[in-house]
C-alpha cells in the first residue's frame, strides 16, 4: 500500500500558513527562476558536478563532449539543468560585462524531428539573445570578445567595449567582416552580427538569427540577400556551426536538450530517437567546443542502446551517462526543510525544535518508501500530509477535471502569446499529433529530403496520398515554393491531393502576381490552400505542448505523473471544434471554407487602408455588404467592426484588429 493511500494523520494544530510549502514542483524551463532557497544543492550533486567537469574538459581538451542524463518523471532533470544554467551564466549585472566563459542554451525538444535543426537553431539563438536593455546578451559578449582579441585589446572588457562603440563605431562592419574571414563565418552571419553590435534593427536581427521570416524591408535594412530556397534544415545547421565558431575553442557552447522523448509522435516511435542521435552526432562533430547534455526519461535508456547507431550513442554519452537516482534519506530531509524555510515556517519549527516540524523523521521515511522516491513524489506526499494537518478539506479532482482545467489554461496562454512567427513550428509539430489523435490508422510521414512538400499523409488502405505543404515563406521564397509545387504536382510528387497551409494572418499580397498565378494553377489541379485560423493555431499549440509534456512525464497532477495515454484519451474526447475542422480537412479532404480567400483579400486591403467604410470595401471585394459584415463578425480576432445606426450596415466601419492601438490611434479623436 502506498503511503498516500494510508489513513491521513490526525489533525494537529493549525499552522497558520496560507500556502502549502510542498506544492508546486514542476519546472517547465531552465531559465525560470524558482526560489533559490528551494534548490537543494546536494540533490544529484554528483551528476551536476559531472556536467561542470564536462564543460572544463571541452575547454581544456579541445574536444566536444556528450553527457546523457536519465531519470524517472519527477526526478529533477529540468531542476538540474536550471541549476547548471545558473552556474554557467552570470547572475549579476556587472558580470555581464566580463568575457563569457561559456555560452548556454536550453532546448526543449517539443518539435517534430523533420524540423529538428530549425528548432535547435531557434532555441539556441533565443538563449544567446537573452538580455535586457541594460545588459548585453551572450551573443554580443561572444562577438565583442572575439573583436577584442582580434584587435589585441587588453584590459577592461567593458571599457574596451565602450571605446569601440563610442570611438570606432564606423569601423565595426569592417572589423566583423575581418573576424568572419579569420574564423570562417558566413558573410550573411557577419553582416547580422555587425547590426547586433551596433544595436541596429534589433527586431530583424533577432528574427533572422532565430530563422524566422522577415519582411522585404527587413532584408533591405540588414543589407542581406533574401534567404535562398535552400534546404532550411541545412541553413539552420550552418547557422549553428557559425555560433560554435564564434564562441571559439576556449568558450564551450553548452546545449542542454530536455524532453528528448517529446520528439516521439507515438510511444513506439523509434525513428525520432534515431534522428535525435543524428543531430547529436553532427553537432558533436561540427566543432570542438560543444557540450551536449541530453536529459531523458529512464525508460528511454533501452531505446538508446537499441535504436541509436553506435557512433551516435558514443557521442550522446561519450563523456558520461548518469542516472538521477531516487532520493536518499538525507536528500529528502534537506528538500523538505528547504521548502519549509522558503515559505517561512520558522515559528512552527522553533516550537517543535526540529527543522522538519511539523513532520517527523518517521513521516519522512514513510514518504520515501523502501526503494526511495523521486523529489516530485516526496513533495506530493508531504503536501498531502500538510493539507491534512491544516485540516484542509481534501477535494481531489479527478484527472479529467484536472486535464480540462489544464487545457483551458494552456489554450488561454497560447491564444495570448501566439504570433505568426511560431506558425511553422506549431504546424510541423502539431499536425502529426493531430492526425495521430484523430485517426491513428492514417500515417503522416515527413517527405523525403529535399522534397517540395513537408509531409505525406497516407490513408489506412492506401486510399489517399495527400501532400502537405506549410507555406510560411514570403516574397520570392514563397513564389519559388509555389512555382516548384506547380511544376511537380501531381505527377512528380505522386500525390492524389495537395493541401497548402498558411497562417491566415499572412495574406499573400495582391502585388505577388507570380505567386498568385501558380496558386491559381495549383487550385485548378485540385490543390487547396487552407488559411489556418488563429484560434486553430493556438489550440494546436496547446495540444502539442500538452502532448509533449505528457510524453516527457512532465504533467504533474498533485505529484502523480499524468500518463500519456490518459492525455491522448482525454484529447480524443474533448478535441475543440476548430481542431476537428482542421483534421477533417486533412483526413477526409473536406474543402476549406470558401470564405477564407475573402478573409485573405480583406486583410490585404485593411493592411493598406487601415480603416474603411464597409460598403466601399464590399464593392472593392465584389461581395455583398451582408456577406462582408458576416465574415468580419465571425472573425473578431482579425477584424474590428463598428456599426452605426443603420441595421443594414451601410454606415459600418471596418478596421484591422491586428493593427491594434496603432490603427485606432489613426482615427481622429473627434
Amino acid at each position, binding site marked *: 500500500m502506498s503511503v498516500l493511500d494510508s489513513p491521513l494523520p490526525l489533525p494537529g494544530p493549525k499552522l497558520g500558513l496560507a500556502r502549502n510549502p510542498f506544492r508546486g514542483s514542476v519546472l517547465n524551463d531552465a531559465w525560470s527562476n524558482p526560489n533559490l532557497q528551494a534548490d537543494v544543492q546536494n540533490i544529484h550533486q554528483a551528476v551536476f558536478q559531472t556536467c561542470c567537469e564536462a564543460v572544463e574538459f571541452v575547454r581544456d581538451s579541445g574536444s566536444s563532449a556528450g553527457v546523457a542524463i536519465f531519470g524517472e518523471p519527477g526526478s529533477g532533470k529540468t531542476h538540474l539543468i536550471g541549476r547548471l544554467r545558473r552556474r554557467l551564466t552570470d547572475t549579476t549585472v556587472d558580470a555581464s560585462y566580463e568575457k563569457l566563459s561559456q555560452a548556454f542554451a536550453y532546448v526543449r525538444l517539443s518539435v517534430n524531428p523533420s524540423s529538428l535543426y530549425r528548432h535547435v537553431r531557434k532555441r539556441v539563438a533565443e538563449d544567446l539573445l537573452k538580455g535586457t536593455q541594460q545588459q548585453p546578451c551572450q551573443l554580443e559578449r561572444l562577438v565583442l570578445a572575439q573583436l577584442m582579441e582580434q584587435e589585441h585589446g587588453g584590459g577592461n572588457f567593458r571599457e574596451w567595449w565602450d571605446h569601440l562603440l563610442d570611438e570606432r563605431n564606423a569601423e565595426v562592419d569592417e572589423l566583423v567582416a575581418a573576424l568572419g574571414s579569420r574564423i570562417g563565418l558566413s558573410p550573411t552571419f557577419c553582416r547580422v552580427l555587425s547590426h547586433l553590435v551596433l544595436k541596429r534593427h534589433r527586431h530583424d536581427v533577432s528574427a533572422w538569427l532565430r530563422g524566422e521570416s522577415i519582411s522585404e524591408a527587413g532584408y533591405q535594412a540588414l543589407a542581406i540577400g533574401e534567404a535562398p530556397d535552400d534546404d532550411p534544415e541545412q541553413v539552420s545547421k550552418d547557422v549553428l556551426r557559425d555560433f560554435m565558431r564564434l564562441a571559439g575553442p576556449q568558450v564551450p557552447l553548452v546545449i542542454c536538450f530536455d524532453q528528448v522523448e517529446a520528439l516521439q509522435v507515438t510511444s513506439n*516511435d523509434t525513428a525520432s530517437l534515431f534522428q535525435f542521435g543524428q543531430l547529436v552526432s553532427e553537432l558533436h562533430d561540427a566543432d570542438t567546443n560543444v557540450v551536449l547534455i541530453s536529459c531523458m526519461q529512464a525508460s528511454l535508456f533501452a531505446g538508446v542502446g537499441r535504436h541509436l547507431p553506435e557512433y551516435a550513442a558514443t557521442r550522446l554519452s561519450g563523456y*558520461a551517462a548518469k542516472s538521477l537516482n531516487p532520493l*536518499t534519506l538525507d536528500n529528502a530531509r534537506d528538500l523538505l526543510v528547504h521548502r519549509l524555510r522558503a515559505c517561512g515556517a520558522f515559528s512552527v519549527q522553533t516550537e517543535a525544535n526540529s527543522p522538519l516540524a511539523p513532520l517527523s523523521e518517521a513521516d519522512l521515511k514513510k514518504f520515501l518508501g523502501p526503494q526511495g522516491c523521486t523529489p516530485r513524489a516526496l513533495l506530493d506526499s508531504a503536501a498531502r500530509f500538510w493539507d491534512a494537518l491544516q485540516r484542509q478539506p481534501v477535494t481531489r479532482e479527478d484527472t479529467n477535471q484536472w486535464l480540462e482545467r489544464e487545457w483551458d489554461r494552456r489554450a488561454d496562454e497560447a491564444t495570448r502569446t501566439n504570433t505568426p512567427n511560431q506558425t511553422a513550428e506549431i504546424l510541423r509539430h502539431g499536425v502529426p499529433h493531430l492526425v495521430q489523435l484523430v485517426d491513428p490508422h492514417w500515417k503522416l510521414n515527413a517527405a523525403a529530403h529535399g522534397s517540395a512538400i513537408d509531409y505525406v499523409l497516407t490513408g489506412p488502405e492506401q486510399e489517399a496520398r495527400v501532400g502537405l505543404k506549410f507555406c510560411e515563406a514570403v516574397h520570392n521564397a514563397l513564389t519559388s515554393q509555389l512555382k516548384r509545387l506547380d511544376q511537380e504536382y501531381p505527377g512528380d510528387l505522386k500525390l492524389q491531393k495537395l493541401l497548402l497551409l498558411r497562417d491566415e494572418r499572412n495574406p499573400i499580397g495582391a502585388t505577388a502576381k507570380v505567386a498568385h498565378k501558380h496558386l491559381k494553377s495549383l487550385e485548378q489541379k485540385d490543390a487547396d490552400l487552407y488559411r489556418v485560423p488563429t484560434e486553430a493555431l493556438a489550440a494546436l499549440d496547446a495540444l502539442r505542448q500538452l502532448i509533449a509534456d505528457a510524453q516527457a512525464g512532465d504533467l504533474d497532477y498533485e505529484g502523480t505523473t499524468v500518463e500519456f495515454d490518459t492525455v491522448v484519451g482525454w484529447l480524443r474526447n474533448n478535441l475543440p471544434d476548430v481542431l476537428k475542422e482542421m483534421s477533417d480537412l486533412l483526413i477526409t479532404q473536406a474543402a476549406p471554407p470558401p470564405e477564407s480567400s475573402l478573409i485573405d483579400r480583406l486583410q490585404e486591403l485593411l493592411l493598406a487602408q487601415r480603416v474603411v467604410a464597409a460598403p466601399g470595401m464590399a464593392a472593392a471585394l465584389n461581395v455583398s455588404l451582408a456577406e462582408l459584415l458576416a465574415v468580419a463578425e465571425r472573425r473578431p480576432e482579425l477584424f474590428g467592426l463598428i456599426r452605426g445606426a443603420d441595421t443594414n450596415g451601410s454606415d459600418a466601419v471596418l478596421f484591422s484588429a491586428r493593427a491594434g492601438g496603432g490603427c485606432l490611434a489613426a482615427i481622429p479623436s473627434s
Partner: protein
Amino acid sequence: MDMAHDVSTAVVLPAANPAETLAIVREILARSAEPLGLKAVAQQMPAAARPAPEPLAEVVQEAVRAGQLFEYPALRGQATFWDRAAADYATLRLRRLLQSGPRTKSELLGAVRGLKLLDGFPKAALERALDDLLSTKVIQKLPSFVGARTPLLSLEPARSPDYLRNAFEKVAAKLGLSSAQLVNDLSAVTRDLAAELPESVPSERARTVEERGNAPLAAAENDLPVSGEIAADEAIHDETIPAAADKPGVEPGGDLDTRLIQGALEINPRVAHGDMVLVAELRGRFDFQADKDEFDKALLRLAGQRRIALHRFDRPWLISEAERDQLVRDDEDYFYNTLSFPDPT
C-alpha cells in the same frame, strides 16, 4: 516510450510506399552491426511491407544519392549498404578488434585495412578514425609488453594479467618449456612472492573496504573524470564484491546479491559511474541461476539497502506480458526496468 518494444514490431506498416520502405530499411540497417546486402535487408523486412527486389534497390539507391544511406564494396557479388559512412564502420571495427585484447597500432590498422568492406578506404582516414578514438579516450595507449618497444592500444586500462600472460609466453618460448612445466614453476614463484609480503600490512583491498565501510560502490566516491573512469573499473570490481558480502545477513562468498552487482558491472562497467543497466539484461545473465521471484526479491532487497537504485517504468501496460515479466515488480505493483548504483556521497 515503450522501452521493451521490439523494433521489428515497431516498424510494421500496412504497405510499402518508397518513404515507408526507406524508413524500414533504415531501421534494419541501424540495428545491423554490419553493412548488409539487399537480400539480407529484404529478409528482415516484415512480409507485408517487403517490396520486390527492383523497387527495393531503387529506394536504396535513391537514399544513397540523398546521402541517407551509404554503399559499401560488394560482398559475394552483391552490393552492401549501411546507414553509416565508411569512417563509422572503420571506427566500429577498430573497437571490435580491440575487444579481444590489446594490439599494436600496426596490427590494428593492418587488420582493419584487410577488411573487404573497407576496400578503398583511405589510409589517412583510417588513421584519423584511430586518432579520434584516442583523443576521446575510447581507446587508450598502454605501455609496451615486457621486452617490446611498441606501445599497445586497448579499450581497457592496462591489466597485469595481459602483461603476465605475454611474459609467460615469451619465457616459455625462450627456454623451450612446455606450458605445463612453466605453470608449475609459476605456482611456486607466486607462493614465494606471497610469503615475502609482510603479514602485518593489510592488503590494499582489505584496507579499502575498511576505510570505505559497507557501501557497495565505495570506489565511486572518487568519481573520477571520464578519462579515469574506465581505469577505475577494475578496482571497483575488486572492491565491490567483498564490500557487498560484508553486509549483515548476506552469505559471503558468491551469494546472489553480490553476483547481481558483479553482473551489472560486467554488463556495463560505466554503471559504477552513474550509468544504468537494464533489468531485463541482468535477468538474462542470471537465467537458470535464479528464478524470477528470487531475482526480483534480491534486487528489491539491494535497493532497500541502498546498494543499488531501481528506476520505475511508468508505462507497463504498453508492453506485452512477456516483456513485463522481464521487469522487477514490487509489492505495490510498481515496475522497475533499470538499475544504477547509488550516488557517491
